[in-house]
């Protein structure tokens, strides 16, 4: 065997496993999901078909369209909330902590919760916010409340709070990557030119960190859209999100084609957002020169 052939054989050996796996367990299942979204349901059967009825139902049936709009609203609020909490923290870590070792330690301690049981971190908010929870009993103990309040749990506020909490570390991670790349000399140059702190921030730091904010926002928005744990644990009667609806279609409602269509819509929205922010990120990089 000559060298070139041998190399090709090696490459084929490396590629075969991962390519076969992604084809069989990702490409094919997604394709089947897409096919199912065009099927029709003749209760209790699911009939192979090619029609857009399931997609139309999502947008025309008030019941589903409301959930769709609510999901977009909650995902937007969570994204904005995560940015508002993560930005000052990340800015502080990157620019105000001088020792690199301390900086990396604090950064690590902030992003570690990201990988710690997502279920348990959501669940704890249920124990904090509940009628007999930590917050209520604390407020009564402190004499601020006479009666436990039902205002904290089982509503959209609780969902936004819990999901924001979950996604802050994601946001910190992407903003950190962007802020860290900004040369301090740029900021110092701006200050040397007599520009104030706030204007320096608005004209130099903030624009250069936009790619990081966008990357974090894309992930946060997408993953919030697909969450069914927070609505289940802390959401109220008006708390169903798209993922909850999908879950119901594959459970009690037994309408797989509709569930598949909703999942496809979700997937398309997420892919569009990721593509758009990727583009914006690349454009931002060119700006930096």
């Amino acid at each position: 065997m000559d060298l070139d052939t041998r190399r090709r054989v090696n490459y084929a050996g490396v590629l075969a496993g991962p390519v076969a796996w992604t084809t069989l367990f990702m490409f094919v299942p997604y394709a089947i999901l897409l096919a199912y979204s065009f099927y029709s349901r003749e209760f209790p059967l699911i009939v192979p078909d090619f029609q857009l009825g399931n997609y139309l139902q999502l947008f025309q049936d008030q019941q589903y369209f409301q959930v769709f709009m609510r999901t977009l609203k909650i995902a937007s609020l969570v994204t904005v909330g995560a940015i508002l909490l993560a930005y000052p923290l990340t800015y502080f870590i990157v620019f105000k902590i001088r020792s690199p070792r301390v900086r990396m330690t604090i950064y690590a301690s902030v992003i570690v919760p990201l990988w710690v049981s997502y279920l348990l971190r959501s669940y704890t908010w249920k124990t904090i916010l509940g009628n007999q929870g930590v917050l209520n009993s604390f407020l009564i103990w402190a004499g601020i409340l006479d009666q436990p309040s039902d205002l904290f749990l089982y509503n959209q506020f609780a969902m936004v709070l819990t999901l924001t909490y979950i996604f802050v570390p994601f946001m910190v991670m992407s903003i950190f990557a962007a802020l860290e790349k900004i040369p301090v000399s740029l900021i110092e140059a701006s200050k040397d030119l007599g520009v104030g702190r706030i204007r320096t921030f608005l004209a130099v730091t903030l624009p250069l960190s936009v790619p990081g904010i966008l990357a974090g926002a894309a992930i946060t928005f997408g993953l919030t859209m697909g969450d069914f744990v927070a609505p289940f644990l802390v959401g109220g009667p008006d708390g169903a999100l798209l993922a909850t609806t999908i879950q119901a279609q594959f459970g009690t409602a037994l309408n797989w084609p509709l569930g598949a269509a909703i999942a496809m819509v979700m997937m398309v929205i997420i892919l569009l957002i990721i593509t758009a922010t990727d583009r914006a990120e690349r454009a931002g990089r060119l700006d930096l020169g």
Partner: protein
Amino acid sequence: MTAATLERNRTVGLSRTRRMPFGSKHASDWTLGIAAAAVVAFLYLPVVVLIIFSFNDNNLTTWPLAGFTWHWYQNAFANKELMIALGNSIYVASIATALCVVLGVPAGIALDRIDFPGKLLFRRLVLLPLVLPGIVTGLAMMIMFTKVLGLSLSLTTVILGHGTALVSVVATQVFARLQRFNRRMEEASADLGARPLQTFWMVTLPNIRSAILGSALLSFTLSFDEIPVTYFLTGRDNTLPMYIYSTLRRGITPEINAIGTVIVLASLVLIVLSIWLLSDRGEKSGK
């Protein structure tokens, strides 16, 4: 972090010390510092609450605290269903992690250095689970398994699902490490007459070993805690998160706080170890 970044951080740190000595801190720095501390407190509050109330001698999670007890831990470890679920989770996470390594390492290598038709699609597919909610992946696989392949759902299908959803974790870390790896070392090895497989075992692998180990630990933690994919792919057997999820329907018991504390602390250890392995220091110790 790359060595270059750290190096730059060091110089950045120096210039900042020169420019802003102690005492000349602006009032806005303090505001920012307090805001930052508040966010960190917010991030750790639920973890602290979980741990404190796992030792609290009260059926309800209410303030003020009622006294110390091991009771909830004893309950949790005496709970047969819970222990079976724990065993299932360890079994699933171990095999899924092995799958992630077996597939993720060659995937990372392929992404770094092989050009092949369809590479872009392959890259997109491998990375997709990082941004796509697990519910979509879980659903898609569930339909294929049950309706097309005619399999019944079990822990095996859960393992296949986790392996698929988490292979990206290993692939991206191996890819990132290879990107920073000096290819000359492989060329030197080849020049010295080593065969490609020898070069891989003796030069490439030792250099990416800590990245593989670190991402494997991360995959294990993530698989252990996984809910959305598991939800659609599990049969009669429960994993621990699915068991907890189903008991939460019935209401909260401090038992969950106890087993939760064990999981959280174990995850923290694995993750810190994993971050260390994936960082510069891990890289050095891997060499």
